[in-house]
């Protein structure tokens, strides 16, 4: 499987480089509307055709990938760190703290976030630049997405806490912080990685859904979420198959990340 890992890394490097150099690689600005050719099929001028407003889909894909590749992992990192902090501490300490934290987590999970997010949007100022809107969106996702992961991490921390190596470490006189830092956290790494990778596609899709509520990335800035929203107008009746390119890229990139980091995860 070494070749697959190498191929995945090469692919990710190419995609990342293309996105970072989008200003030079993209054939057109992401917001420019070629109004004479809306919804055009792929051509030499527009490699992936144009969207409903005549914007070059390839350029938007490059810029959108840049936004999502930077911000979705950032949000996933934030939520995973929060989950590690809350779930790990609760599982490690146990007792009343664990019960209280888990009760709070359950409460957090049971909240109707959709409606709360609508309320949050209603409270936000209207005059927000697109780049600020995208930062707000992913920050919100990062702050709200920790609860499910925290539950899993707490359970894992409980199991690890009663394992033989922890018992040995305790018997050897390791302090609480040392136990947590040197023994527990390294063993939680695989599950943290898993939670991190699960969160990325979830956050990208959530961002797409939030767009429908007005919470997503504001026009004209593209993101994977807003590009995937194009599929809303895909019709089984008569579709444009090239509209699926962002979805395919999204799946391939997430898969490549899994392949590229598999070894690291296993060794962790």
């Amino acid at each position, binding site marked *: 499987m070494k070749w697959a890992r190498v191929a995945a890394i090469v692919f990710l490097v190419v995609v990342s480089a293309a996105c970072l150099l989008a200003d030079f690689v993209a054939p057109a600005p992401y917001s420019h509307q070629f109004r004479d050719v809306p919804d055009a099929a792929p051509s030499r001028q527009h490699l992936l055709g144009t969207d409903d407003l*005549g914007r070059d889909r390839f350029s938007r894909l490059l810029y959108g990938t840049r936004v999502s590749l930077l911000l979705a992992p950032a949000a996933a990192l934030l939520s995973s760190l929060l989950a590690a902090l809350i779930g790990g501490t609760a599982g490690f300490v146990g007792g009343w703290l664990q019960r209280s934290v888990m009760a709070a987590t359950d409460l957090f999970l049971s909240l109707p976030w959709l409606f709360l997010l609508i309320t949050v949007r209603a409270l936000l100022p*209207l*005059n927000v630049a697109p780049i600020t809107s995208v930062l707000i969106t992913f920050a919100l996702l990062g702050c709200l997405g920790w609860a499910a992961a925290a539950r899993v991490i707490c359970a894992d921390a409980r199991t690890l806490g009663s394992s033989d190596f922890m018992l040995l470490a305790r018997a050897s006189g390791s302090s609480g912080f040392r136990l947590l830092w040197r023994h527990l956290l390294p063993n939680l790494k695989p599950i943290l990685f898993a939670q991190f990778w699960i969160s990325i596609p979830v956050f990208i899709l959530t961002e797409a859904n939030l767009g429908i509520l007005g919470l997503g990335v504001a026009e004209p800035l593209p993101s994977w979420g807003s590009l995937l929203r194009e599929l809303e107008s895909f019709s089984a*009746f*008569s579709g444009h198959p090239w509209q699926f390119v962002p979805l395919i890229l999204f799946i391939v990139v997430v898969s490549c990340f899994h392949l590229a980091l598999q070894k690291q995860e296993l060794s962790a």
Partner: protein
Amino acid sequence: MKQRLVRLALSLSVVLTISLAAAQSGSELRFCLRAEPKTLNPVLMADEPSETVRYLTGGVLMRLNRLTQQLEPELATSWKVSENGKTISFKLRQNVRFSDGTPFSAEDVAYTMQQLMDPDLHSPTGDAFRSGEGKVITQITGKNHMTVTFPAPVVGLDKLFDQVAIMSAKSPEKEMAVLGPYYVAENKAGSYLILKRNPNYWKHDSSGRQLPHIESVRLDIQQNRDMEMLRLVRGEIDFVNSLDAEYFDKLAAQAPNMATDAGVSLDSEQMWFNQVASSPLPAYKKAWFTSTNFRRAISEAINREDLARVVFRGHARPAVSWVSPANKFWFNAKLQPHPYDQKSALQALAQDGFHMQDGALHDRDGHLVEFSVITNAGNKYRERMATMIQQDLSGIGIRLNVVTLDFPSLIERITRSFDYEACLLGLVNNDLDPNSQMNVWLSSAENHQWNPSQKTPATTWEAEIDTLMRAQASTLDMKKRKHAIDRVQEIVWQQEPFIYLVNKNAMSAVSAAVHNAHPVALTPQVFWNIDQLTLGTEVARNR
């Protein structure tokens, strides 16, 4: 030889007639409703699916011909509105029976009016007749003559009866006994309705055959537009009454003979600025939004032709004012849409002290011209229009932020908190008479969106609109009314409290199997002449 040929032709025509009649006798017209009808009581109907059922089943005193936009006699053979606009007298058609056989009489009209105006029933149809405090008096003046008197003049009184389905006062079937071409034979909640031909329908065609031609109508409840289109292409349904531009183009590419664009409709899309004095906006923004020059400049900087061509794929036309060109009588034909002219826009802005600085527009005090436009999330046409306007306005150095909000939040902002700068929404209009928009144009009205519920008009032109709208509502002289409405359109065109963007076209899809279908811009676009529609024999046989 000649005789033989004549005989052969005659026998062939007899065979054809018999087979056609046989085919029609088992024919079923099928189409989809986008939701379940909320009620089958014609007095209480307000939603579109219920109104479809009412149109197909209800017998009315007079019907607005959707093609000519003229009233035509139905259950009333003639009518007259009194000079003071309070009384309407009818001569009713004789020998008419409800679907259950109960005879139709003036008592039924009186009963329907009583139901319609019953304050406990809160009839949405009845609301249009409520012109003043007091009782509505119905008088039966002869065997087939009656009058209805309202406490105050009702503008466009006769046309309102197009929506009034007459109910039986005596039938044990209550509202299920109807006078229209069909009656509800089966109602499977959430799934379908079957309407059967009314055996007692009074109308006959020119050859004396009882109408309607089609035996039954099946209304399938289908929310998914894709499914509806697929079913049309497969031949499982016969038409789609209303299509949006995207589906229209997809269908036109696959089956061009099915897609019909009946031209511009009564619906409009518009944007407006918040001019509420008590709104939480900074004073300098209030000054922008209340300036006619600023609003005119924004209007001129928007490329309406592009909006119609790109967003609606050519199935819309640049809007002029608040009356659509589809409204043949009331539209002010002297007015033209504001042309796209960024130079003129910048000149208008310069008059108010706006100037360009580093490629961005600033006001006379140096504030960067930036504002947000809100629209309802999920409406892709409005989102696209807002994004195109964003690019258009960037051409004159204005930064526009597009914000999509869920509908309740949007309504909260535009009606209560007034915490917004500009809003882009549309108006679905089914009424030809502009008097129905009194609740928008009077400065004291709650729906006077840019600055609602004013105690006294904030501007002289709003005061003039108030005067004109009240004047047209207090006279039955159509010339005077038309003159007043023309002037209101002119003021709105000049002042642009609403910046009208486009009027959408009315599009529909009709299978080749349906004959005599002439889709129009007014609702119901396809089946407005339901009793004249016929189905091809091959369809009837296959079903």
